């Protein structure tokens, strides 16, 4: 992947499509076909630390991504895996703000409770963020999200709706 990234970085920095004007503004152009994106990131969900990786593709204003995270809790680790849809609010330039909505599976894995089992639940998320590209293949990405999930309460018949907020900072690698 590193070779791909490097090759793409060099190709993007020097090339323009025949017949198309060179974009003299330093930045990226999401309107010229599909751009794939890899985003390792870290952050906080509540008071717990987060590590994660997003694999995505952008085509103009639309983006699709698969995201996996580890939320490190005191007594359990949470592993949200989600599929997200992005709406890029800009398609050219260095700064690309976006909105995001997605859904996925949450796995809660206890770390120090003997006999406790992994609990899975479905979750939704929405939020927004921005990517700022330092080069045509590399930038930083800041994102804020609201997560929602339900868990079954063993003592009561109804389920409980839970909300979590996440703030994350990562880097974004782009390649075609």
């Amino acid at each position, binding site marked *: 992947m590193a070779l791909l990234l490097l090759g793409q970085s060099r190709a993007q920095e020097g090339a323009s499509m025949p017949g198309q004007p060179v974009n003299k503004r330093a930045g990226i152009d999401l309107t010229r076909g599909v751009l794939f994106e890899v985003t390792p990131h870290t952050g906080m969900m509540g008071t717990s630390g987060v590590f994660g990786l997003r694999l995505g593709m952008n085509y103009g204003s639309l983006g699709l991504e698969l995201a996996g995270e580890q939320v490190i809790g005191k007594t359990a*680790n949470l592993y949200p895996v989600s599929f997200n849809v992005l709406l890029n609010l800009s398609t050219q330039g260095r700064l690309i703000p976006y909105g995001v909505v997605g859904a996925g599976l949450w796995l809660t894995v206890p770390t120090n409770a003997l006999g406790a089992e992994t609990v899975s639940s479905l979750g939704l998320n929405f939020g927004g963020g921005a990517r700022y590209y330092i080069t045509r293949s590399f930038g930083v990405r800041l994102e804020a999200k609201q997560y929602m999930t339900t868990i079954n309460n063993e003592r009561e018949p109804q389920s409980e709706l839970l909300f979590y907020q996440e703030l994350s900072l990562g880097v974004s690698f782009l390649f075609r």
Partner: protein
Amino acid sequence: MNARQACSVLTVILLSTALVTPASGQSLPRAGTGIGVFAGLYSADGIATNSYYGARYDYGFQGGKFFVEASLGIGSLDSKVLESVTSASLFESSRLLTYEFDVAYDHTPTGPVPFVLLGVTGIDQGGQTKFAGVVGFGKRFVLSGIFDDRMIARLDIRDHLFSQEFNNKGSFTAHNLSLTLGLTLAL
């Protein structure tokens, strides 16, 4: 690893670094990707010091003055001292796994000033995971004549800071120190 073994490894690392002299006129790659491996010592605060090794990926930008890095490290929490004084174990296993994201600033890539580094890491200590901050510094040297001057030697010293608690006896800020020597190939 006992103190003598730790000192031996440390000596080898320091001697190796001293032998790697930056060639005059050789500059570090100004930007782009690099992949590498590292090995050294990891001192788990209050537990033990053991060997530590892993792999890293880095990406330089702004003329090579900044780079971001992702790394994976593997070590051990084995402690002969703790084993000899108690039959109970602090963790389910002696496995130590770290996964780290960092950003570093190297003001003088070819000069004598080391780079400084900040980041975060996940530390899996025998099944118990901690989220830790990372501070550190290091130095990069071009190994001239190897792979068209694309091979870089690195010395890194880092501190993993996090809240640790044993047996519900109150938490304290743990400082897990690591000293590693690495090789990175600039792609």
